[in-house]
């Protein structure tokens, strides 16, 4: 909000430079963003806090300047010369408030014989300096008073008010109005309007109607200076999606006490600058109790408790009075009467802030609170999350962070079966209209971004929450104050690998990332987490390539999925390369307790290590061979490892060769060769009987 130093000087003596003024205003909470010009022509751009409508005008900011520089605030010019002998205002118009809950005060004045014309230069200059465009003298004067004193005014062409009557009432059902901006608006019964005898002529506190606006031929004006209840104005402004200088102030709380001051100032200017004759008498209708002032008890001790500053009572009184408060001494402090322009001050703590910012926050000492604290991390499975993160990092995956809102098409493409998504009602952009139900689309797009920018190895993971719709869920226990959102949040980890499995290196041939790279990273992480899971063929492979995907199962619960992205889906994401993806639901996986670690003695007797080359059918799963070996070999089999896998012409059709290393061991003695041979024979027999496996010759 822009303020001309020159204008402020009408109300307070300013002896410091604009730069110094800016610094001091900033230090009391009115942040000055920029200073344009210098000296008397300086314009300050001030960030007025939203709870300080009293500071959104020249006089109000001058009050702050006076307080911070120990100067006197001049009184506001309010004298108006009424036309003696002319018919009184009350004979020219009548005013009635029918909705006293939404309108606390309505002041009106009648000004006759106005000549609508351009404003004089000094008004044009002052309004222009703060960025306002002049319209005509009548409209400019209402704006001038708004920016000078902060009270919104409205001018009606009195001859167009049917019945010369003002009624402040709620809109009728189906009532419409064309506002000053030319838009026809449909009103709702909870909206407050200013009406004449038959129709709405203004949306109260928001905008006037086009039908009664000041035009070139207007001669008789009814000025309005009212006070409207803040939340009512705000609701109406929101419903109509119409925010104006007036509504901005009313919804933050205008000063009910200055309504008559503002109207008198405007009437005096109309007389002075537009040749108007002010009808005798101010029409001033007030709702009962609307003008009452608040009194707050302020304890001197509370100032010290909250700020750590000890401030003498005399200084407290001086600070408060400089800001327009009345402070009467009480045994432990003051009874403070809050001026009507400070509606933001409603409790003792607010007064403490007034005193503290007057004393200056720089005077607050620095101490360290002496309170016990446990230093606990009360976050779901945070240690396991860190272990998982560190394991994936060690496996070469970098940590990604993708947006929580994505395109609903992308989410749908990679969504888990049976999951319902959670759309936003007011997304910011296309492609961000749904809360992600899976981390995979974000990671897939991150992979595409990297591939498109020439990155040849892409390995990323993300740990974050996904959102799923839960129908008809009962209110959450600690959501007792509102109906529980029907949204479930799950912590997930997503992994993507595409491009080269490793940077091209002299030590090994280049290889593309695949299913087993991602699976390996997960298995490594599971080991580091002391958790177990198996990988099973999924019932429905979507969105993965058929035969190249698995469900991850832990403790009988499906906790994740891993697979190669199906070509069609990949194409939808604009990717040609092979993409391996995995997603693990950590809320489920980490629900299982970790296996407690207990030391196992290191075997004292030597093991016997034997390699076998086996020919097996292509459909035989490795895990079946592995468990058959363990079962057949019994306790003697300590470890089974697959160390080579070969497909080639030398093998029978539909067969592959696997090289297996089996370690036989006994805890209490060295195994004899015969024992090992007998065990191996049992293993081979079992493999042959169950899977038709033969030894490779």
């Amino acid at each position, binding site marked *: 909000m822009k303020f001309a130093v020159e204008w402020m000087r009408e109300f307070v003596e300013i002896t410091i430079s604009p730069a110094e003024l800016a610094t001091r205003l900033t230090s009391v909470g009115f942040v000055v963003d920029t200073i344009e010009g210098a000296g008397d022509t300086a314009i300050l751009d001030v960030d007025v806090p939203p709870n300080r409508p009293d500071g959104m005008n020249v006089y109000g900011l001058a009050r702050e300047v006076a307080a911070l520089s120990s100067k006197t605030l001049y009184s506001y010019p309010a004298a108006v010369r009424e036309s003696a002998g002319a018919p009184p205002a009350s004979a020219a118009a009548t005013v009635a408030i029918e909705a006293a809950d939404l309108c606390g005060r309505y002041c009106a004045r009648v000004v006759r014989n106005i000549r609508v014309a351009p404003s004089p230069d000094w008004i044009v200059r002052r309004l222009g300096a703060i960025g306002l465009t002049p319209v005509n003298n009548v409209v400019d004067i209402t704006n001038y008073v708004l920016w000078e004193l902060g009270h919104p005014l409205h001018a009606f062409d009195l001859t167009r008010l049917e019945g010369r009557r003002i009624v402040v009432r709620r809109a009728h059902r189906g009532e419409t109005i064309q506002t000053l901006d030319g838009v026809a608006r449909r009103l709702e019964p909870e909206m407050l309007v200013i009406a004449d005898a038959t129709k709405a002529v203004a949306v109260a506190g928001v905008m006037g109607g086009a039908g009664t606006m000041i035009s070139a031929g207007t001669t008789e004006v009814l000025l309005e200076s009212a006070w409207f209840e803040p939340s009512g104005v705000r609701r109406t402004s929101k419903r109509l999606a119409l925010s104006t200088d007036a509504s901005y102030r009313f919804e933050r709380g205008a000063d009910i006490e200055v309504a008559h001051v503002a109207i008198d100032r405007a009437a005096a200017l109309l007389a002075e600058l537009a040749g108007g004759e002010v009808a005798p008498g101010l029409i001033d209708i007030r709702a009962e109790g609307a003008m009452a002032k608040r009194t707050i008890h302020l304890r001197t001790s509370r100032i010290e408790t909250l700020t750590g500053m000890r401030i003498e009572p005399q200084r407290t009184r001086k600070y408060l009075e400089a800001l327009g408060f009345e402070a009467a001494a009480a045994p432990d402090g003051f009874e403070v009467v809050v001026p009507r322009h400070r509606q933001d001050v409603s409790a003792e703590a607010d007064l403490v802030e007034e005193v503290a910012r007057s004393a200056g926050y720089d005077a607050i000492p620095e101490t360290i609170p002496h309170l016990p604290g446990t230093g*606990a991390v009360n976050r779901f499975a945070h240690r396991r999350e860190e272990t998982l993160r560190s394991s994936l990092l060690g496996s070469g995956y970098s940590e990604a962070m993708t947006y929580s809102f994505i395109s609903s098409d992308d989410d749908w493409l990679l969504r888990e079966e049976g999951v319902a998504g959670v759309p936003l009602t007011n997304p910011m952009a296309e492609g961000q209209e749904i809360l992600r139900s899976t981390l995979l689309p974000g990671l897939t797009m991150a992979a595409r971004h990297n591939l498109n920018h020439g990155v040849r190895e892409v390995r990323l993971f993300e740990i974050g929450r996904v959102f799923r719709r839960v129908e008809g869920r009962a209110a959450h226990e600690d959501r007792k104050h509102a109906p529980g959102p029907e949204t479930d949040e799950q912590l997930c980890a997503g992994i993507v690998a595409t491009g080269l499995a490793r940077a091209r290196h002299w030590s090994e041939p280049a290889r593309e990332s695949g299913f087993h790279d991602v699976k390996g990273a997960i298995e490594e992480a599971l080991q580091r987490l002391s958790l177990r899971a198996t990988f099973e063929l999924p019932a429905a492979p979507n969105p993965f390539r058929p035969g190249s995907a698995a469900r991850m199962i832990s403790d009988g619960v499906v906790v994740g999925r891993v697979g190669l992205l199906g070509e069609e889906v990949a194409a939808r994401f604009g990717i040609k390369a092979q993409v391996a993806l995995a997603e693990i639901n950590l809320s489920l996986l980490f629900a299982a307790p970790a296996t407690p670690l207990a030391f196992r003695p290191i075997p004292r007797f030597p093991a016997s290590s034997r390699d076998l080359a086996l020919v097996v059918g292509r459909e035989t799963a490795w895990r079946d061979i592995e468990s058959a070996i363990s079962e057949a070999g019994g306790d003697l089999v300590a470890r089974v490892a697959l160390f080579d896998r070969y497909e080639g012409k030398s093998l029978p059709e539909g067969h592959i060769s696997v090289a297996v290393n089996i370690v036989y061991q006994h805890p209490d003695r060295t195994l004899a060769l015969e024992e090992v041979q007998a065990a191996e024979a049992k293993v081979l027999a079992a493999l042959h009987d169950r899977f038709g496996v033969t030894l490779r010759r």
Partner: protein
Amino acid sequence: MPPLDRLEEALDRVRSEFASAIGRSADTGSLEALRNRFLGRKSGLLTLALKGLKDLPEKDRPPAGEKANRLRAEIESALAEAEARVSAGAARRAPHALDVTLPGIAARSGAVHPVTLVRREIESIFLEMGFTIEEGPEVEDDWHNFEALNLPPDHPARDMQDTFYVEGGGLLRTHTSPIQIRTMMKVQPPLKMLAIGKAFRRDSDISHSPMFHQVEGLVVGEGVSMADLKGTIRLFAGRLFRGDLRVRLRPGYFPFVEPGAEFDVSCMICGGDGCRLCKRSGWIEMGGAGMVHPNVFENVGYDTEKYTGFAFGFGVDRIAMLRYAIDDIRLFFENDLRFLDQFRGEA
């Protein structure tokens, strides 16, 4: 010929003779011989040339000595270089020799996201100060996100936080403050907690992302004051930015605190003298703070007379931007490995 000129001529002769001789020496033995021939203590060529030194007038001796020493150093370093070359060549010809200059073989680890790096650092500083770390849902209800924080419906300050709403009820939390509400409803004072996580606002430019990370601290107890707030922030900022930074509070408005403040720390680059980072002000704006508003305490059932508390909050992404001189917040969510890889050294 004056004695000095004669000496210099002798030194030049030695230099050129050495230059042609070293080119012909390709093994350890011949290099050793070369060393003896030129630098030998008794009959080395350089030693012999220097015999003329004693015939020089007193004033000519220092410059002549200096020239001789320079030549000696040249010969020494040329010999050392040649010896190194010869022995490396010999090593390469050794049976089963490796090319030790080939890149090593390693499993390459990934990079931690810079926001995680900064989050961990902030957490560890506060954990050491005895704070607990708490969490809460990202899809919140109106009560926890606004009303309990002294932001009743129709409050104009709601405009400060442009909110995403969710179908089926609820909203994306606009700050991490609802975590404070949830924690206070579970725990009685004294309380020292940190809430850290994602927050969402409908806002997007070079320094605002619709999704961002926020951290908030809350301390509640008997006699907790703004002085404690100031001291805590200073202690924290000093550790985070590794220096003795000053803290400045300015009055500021946030509905859930009163008195309210904005807090700045002295610029970590210029120390407060004024530079580009701090826009010549000497101060870096960090975030908002203040004493918890009594209405908030009432909403969670705390005794507003017995307890006072302070709260502060700031952006985690912003700290990461300051720390690593990143100028666009959107880089954090693009996941470009050319960006992420740069943080491998920070893990």
